[in-house]
């Protein structure tokens, strides 16, 4: 579903970025991407989402190179940043309609899906209000509904659980599992290692822009240690 080969991205005048990162995410994977602040998680996700240009490497989404055919790639996925700055001058329903129009979602499908997810996330009554009146959590929920409304094959999420109430977090986890059961894949960054350990089947750890560990979650935590212990161990080893 997603193949990243030798991705290198450096910012001008800064030592930060990502160096020679390679990953492969297969259909059905829920892939956690963990690392400390400034490690390069968001940079990687933004490169995958086509928001950032990168210096070297290849990113293939469903076999399509994002540099060669960005629009075909973007039709396959939905991306939600860590701080979803949504058009504040639109109402919630106008934003969802806009996204549905862009992805050419039919009238009946969009009605059904918006109704379903808005009810689940309990924001139906607020859909007629301007996004500027929404709290951070409500914006997050709206962004999630906009991602789910067009049934993407790949969901790219940057810190998706930040700002969500417990019920919404459960709904999101269920939606993630459902997408994977239907053959899709999830690639998301998180600092909540417990969630990553319970939810994901694969994990990658990044430090200072370099991938220092990746693989099956079961293999990584099979020694009886928690993901948190493994993370601390691996990060400290890489620092030595």
């Amino acid at each position, binding site marked *: 579903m997603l193949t990243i080969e030798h991705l290198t991205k450096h910012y*001008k*005048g*800064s030592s930060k970025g990502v160096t020679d990162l390679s990953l492969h995410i297969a259909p059905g994977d829920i892939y956690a991407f963990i690392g400390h602040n400034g490690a390069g998680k968001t940079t990687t996700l*933004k490169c995958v*989402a*086509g*928001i950032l*240009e990168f210096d070297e490497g290849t990113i293939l989404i469903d076999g399509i190179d994002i540099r060669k055919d*960005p*629009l*075909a790639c*973007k*039709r396959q996925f939905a*991306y939600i*940043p860590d701080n979803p*700055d*949504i*058009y*504040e*001058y*639109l109402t*919630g*329903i*106008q934003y969802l*309609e*806009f*996204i*549905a*129009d*862009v*992805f*050419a*979602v*039919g*009238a009946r499908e*969009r*009605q059904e899906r*918006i*109704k379903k997810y808005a*009810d689940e996330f309990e924001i*139906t*009554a*607020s*859909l*007629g*209000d*301007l996004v*500027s*009146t929404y709290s951070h959590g409500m914006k997050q929920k709206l962004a999630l509904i906009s991602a789910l409304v067009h049934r993407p094959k790949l969901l790219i999420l940057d810190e998706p659980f930040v700002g969500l109430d417990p019920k919404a977090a459960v709904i999101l986890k269920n939606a993630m599992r459902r997408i994977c059961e239907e053959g899709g894949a999830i690639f998301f960054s998180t600092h909540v290692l417990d969630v990553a350990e319970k939810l994901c089947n694969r994990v990658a750890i990044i430090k200072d822009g370099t991938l220092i560990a990746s693989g099956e979650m079961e293999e990584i935590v099979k020694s009886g240690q928690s993901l948190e212990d493994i993370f601390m161990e691996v990060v400290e080893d890489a620092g030595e």
Partner: protein
Amino acid sequence: MRENDNTRKSGAMGQSGAMGQSGMMEQPGEMEKSKTMEQFRAMVRMELCNIFGLNVFRHTRDSRAKKKSLGLLCLYVFLLAAMAFYVGGLSYGLISLSMGEVVFAYLIAICSVVIFVFGILKAGNVLFRREGYDMLCALPVPTAAVVLARVLRMYVENLGLSLVVLLPGTIVYAWIVRPGASFYLTLLLGTLSVPMIPMAGAVLIGVFVTGVSSRMRHKSLVAAGLSILVVLGILLLSSRLSAMEGNLNLEMLKNVSAFVFAMLEKLYAPAVWLGKAVIYGDFLRCLMCVGLSLAIFAAVAVGSCVCFHQICRNLYGGFARHDYKKEELGGLKRKSVLVSLCGREFRRYFASSIYVTNTIIGPIMGCLLSGMLLFLGMDSLEAYFLIPGDVGLLVPFLLAGVFCMMTVTSTSISMEGKNWWIARSLPLSAKHIFDAKILMNLLLMLPFYLLSEGMLVLAIRPGILEAVWMFLIPAVMIVFSCVYGITVNLHFPVLNWESEVAVVKQSASAVLGGIGGFVLAILCMVAALVIPEEYSNVLRGSVCVVLILATVVLYRGNNRHAMAWE
């Protein structure tokens, strides 16, 4: 945090210093005062450190951003040089005509009108901007420090503008007249007070417009409507003032200076008082003018402090009804991408009062221009704009220039700001996005264009060929300016802004987009005046052909340039 630490340290130092000198403890009231002053200084430092984007320019490591800032600086230097040349020439002309005594009254009046009109359009946005509002509310800083720091920032900007106007005039005046020391002293004091009254007036109206609109659901639209009404009111008043020139008093004509003073006194009396005080080196009169300016300025600043939080709460509170019904989802329909994008562009446009007021003035002025021709006759235009030659020949160009004074597209990419990630991560081609922006701008102009052209036809009653030019020239120029706006904004995008003022009023694309179409129209008018009348159709045809070709080239260039973004 460092500011707070510094505040604490300097507060403590001030306290110990006071104790050391007087040998007794400072009163709690005095401590509070020194603390407030220190906080005020910290707020002012924060406001002024990034004036004209200087702080970002100093610290950015992005060489491209630095080059762009330098380019913008060059543009500003060019505009300032043009302004200095104009003011210097004007001053020289007045002195040569033995009207040296009106020079400063004239220049102060120009400054004041510019500060007042532009101040109205941005006062509300600068004073009540949302940036950091929640954080400021949580800090132990008095409201007065926040408001006064913002007012002071506006004052410093306007003082800079005053210097740009007054300095060339002063140099020319000093070079020719060689005045005494009292002139320089009064000028120095007077210059500091020049921005105060017009700024106070602008802030008062800005606060009123923002305050009234903040209570309504469609705040931005109401604010834009009120601002436009105020600007039109000023234009109407100034046109009535011009009309009064017709009733010249013979006695006045004998003394041109007295006539100019009388005119300026009707426009803005303090300019005459201060101008006379400077010319005659009358320090006492200058002091009175400064005192009056300070009193008015202080009163308005205090008033702004009093209503600051109430207006901010109304502005940022929002109206959430929480009454959307599931049944309404049944009405959702699928639309084409272009229609959907265009609808979003309209909503974005009407959500920002400063965006609307800055870009809609041109089309409104276009309609007023045509209305003036229709209801007051062709002579009114000749008298008002002092245009020599065949006005009928020039009207299509003039109308086009007025319509293109400030295109929406020249800042429409920058206005995406922090939302740009949405367009970039969606399966949308840059062509789709730009087409929607151009279409929105054209649709916005269409009713004004049709109304204006309709009135023009009724006013001039042209023949078929003349009518074709009358419709075609503005239309071609409007389409060109919309595409040119995208080109300019693509080359000078500003996406990491906090205040819309930075995009709509201060960005390079706003300046270039604003002057591009207008300068083009002026060049065409000059060409129309210079070229013999029998070649007028050739000229108009050539202008249309060249503009259509330029539009096609720019349009294709925009889409090619933007492919790298997809």
